[in-house]
């Protein structure tokens, strides 16, 4: 894996909300074909990092390069046109629009001739969405909404998929379904995935490599399995949640 080409590199990124610092110089890289997980507690800055990559808020210092293009100062909608797709925190599906319309929104940027093909891929991955096709997004269950959010992101046929807390508020069985789908996407289609998670166990088990974020800094990195075995990770993110 290590010789693979870097798809996304974040170096020395600092992000502020007004005067409050959220990211204190973050460095990480995501290589082509990898699943990379970022874990951390509430308020560590995981989602801020995700949003900074997407250009809202923009990084005050540092550089974010995607596929050879500097995207640090680009507006969000232009970044998304480069082949990055995002399933944002809290899913953010369109509640009054049907599943079909939600998926169409995901395909807004690409040539309509790929639409049918992409739709089929999403249905193969999440057959539940096909059953719910003409239902409003807001009437779906939490797990189905997460599937829709990922499906919607996949409709643009991205090279890099960014997932912000895909397991948020979902039952264990549904979390497993979602994570299986992510693994399947990565193995069968070579899709590069960068995900931010609080569910450290599942995320690190799924990921090739992982980063741990504390207070706007990256404190640890390594392969998923290495991090799972680390005592600090176990104490902070695994044992604590067992109760």
């Amino acid at each position, binding site marked *: 894996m290590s010789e693979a080409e870097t798809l996304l590199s974040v170096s020395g990124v600092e992000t502020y909300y007004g005067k409050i610092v959220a990211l204190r110089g973050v460095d990480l890289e995501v290589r082509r074909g990898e699943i990379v997980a970022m874990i951390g507690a509430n308020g560590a800055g995981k989602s801020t990092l995700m949003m900074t990559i997407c250009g809202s808020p923009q990084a005050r210092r540092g550089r974010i390069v995607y596929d050879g293009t500097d995207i640090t100062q680009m507006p969000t909608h232009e970044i998304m046109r480069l082949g990055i797709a995002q399933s944002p925190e809290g899913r953010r599906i369109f509640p009054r629009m049907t599943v079909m319309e939600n998926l169409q929104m995901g395909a*807004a940027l690409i040539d309509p001739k790929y639409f049918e093909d992409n739709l089929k891929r999403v249905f193969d991955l999440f057959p539940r969405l096909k059953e719910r096709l003409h239902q409003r997004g807001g009437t779906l269950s939490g797990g189905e909404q997460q599937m829709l959010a990922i499906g919607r992101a996949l409709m643009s046929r991205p090279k890099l998929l960014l997932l912000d807390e895909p397991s948020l508020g979902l039952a264990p069985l549904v979390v497993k379904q979602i994570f299986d789908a992510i693994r399947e996407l990565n193995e069968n289609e070579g899709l590069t995935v960068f995900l931010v998670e609080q569910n450290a166990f599942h995320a690190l088990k799924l990921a090739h490599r992982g980063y741990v974020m504390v207070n706007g800094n990256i404190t640890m990195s390594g392969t998923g399995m290495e991090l799972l075995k680390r005592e600090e990770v176990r104490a902070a993110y695994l044992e604590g949640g067992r109760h």
Partner: protein
Amino acid sequence: MASPEASIPASVQKPMGAQGRAAAPGGARSGAGEGGLAGSLRDAALAAFLAGVLGFFFIGLRADIAPGGLDLRARWGAWIVSILVVFVGRLALNLFVFRTSKPVTKTIGARLTGLSDAVPGLGKWLTRALLVFALVLPFVVTTFFSSRDRQIIDLAILIMTYVMLGWGLNIVVGLAGLLDLGYVAFYAVGAYSFALLATHFEFIGFWTALPLAGLLAAMWGIILGFPVLRLRGDYLAIVTLAFGEIIRVVLLNWYEFTGGPNGISGIPKPTFFGLELSRGDDGMAAFFGFEYDPIQRFIYLYYIILLLALITNLVTIRLRKLPIGRAWEAMREDEIACRSLGINTRNTKLTAFAIGAMFGGFAGSFFATRQGFISPESFTFLESAIILAIVVLGGLGSQIGVVVAAVVMIGGMELLRNLDFLTYIFGPDFDPVRYRMLIFGLAMVFIMVWKPRGLVATREPSAVLKEKKRIGADMVAQGEGH
């Protein structure tokens, strides 16, 4: 394994909580139902007594200025009528709403929702019936109501103008979700564009000015759009409200250009391919060899506004199925999600403002040519409020809802002028038109209580793979509709 376990209680709690909430009002209602008829009567009598006490001075006595002081007059008739109205009204409310296990309001609401669900093609047939009715209306009126044809067609033109304005605003408020309280500004821009162009340049008539007025209004839509790009909800509403007032105040004070409060008069009437609808030898009647009748002008105006309104409607329906229309609706739902899907929300908002404003401008031109005279007085905030009320009462985003709401509101107000029998009850100087804003407000309150999402709350999906399936507004809550 740890955190999944922790998430179980949360998912179990939710449905339980929902059940608890649903059960509570049911229990309370059955408890109140035991009061029965006697309780209802006692309550109504109490309310009537209170109305009598409160109304004694306000309604029962009337002071007029007379030479040498005030002249006190008793109006016992009006006082007793108001007490009776309160008694009967309160009794009816008690029997059918407050103290019954099956409130009639709920039944009506459910019936209305059920009606559109039970008959799948109803909406479609209603639309077609309304369209046919609108097309043949002038002939029906001139044949069967020839004594009052002018008045009725004039009212139809007025309602149609509001339907068009409602459809135009529906793009901005209903589809794109941008609360615009200053829509009348674009109406004014359209009206003044045509009036000024027509009075300054001899060769410009209604049909040449129409596209120009639309373009100018669209340009002003973009000019308004730029500063409010970053605003949402309440803040957007305030700024658009201010924008509407600015346009009106400028029109009022730029005396040399707009004529100020005197307005602009002598605005030409629309021609039919260059032929005027007049009695003269070069008129349309003479050209085609039929007899001239002043009503033809009204019928012609009616068909122009019908055409303009239908164009607005067709464009909106078409746009909804195109990516831009879908992006508007998605932006209404969630702007951040839109941006994360690569939608340029700035351009999306600006196009919504521009296209909505353009139709407002068309309607404004029509208004100017119909009236022949315009002044800033026609473009007050009240107009914006009425148009917005039509859109909201009709159901945000619903095209047919706008029609129904416009007919009810504008037609209803006009109906008040014909309620002469009320003067027998309330005395000869009672003028129901004076109470129109009160009735207007009451109607809004009632509709919002019964149908909080407007008269037509169902949203027709813009995209279908195989068969259509409608989803009612009541199923929008999460976890329902399986």
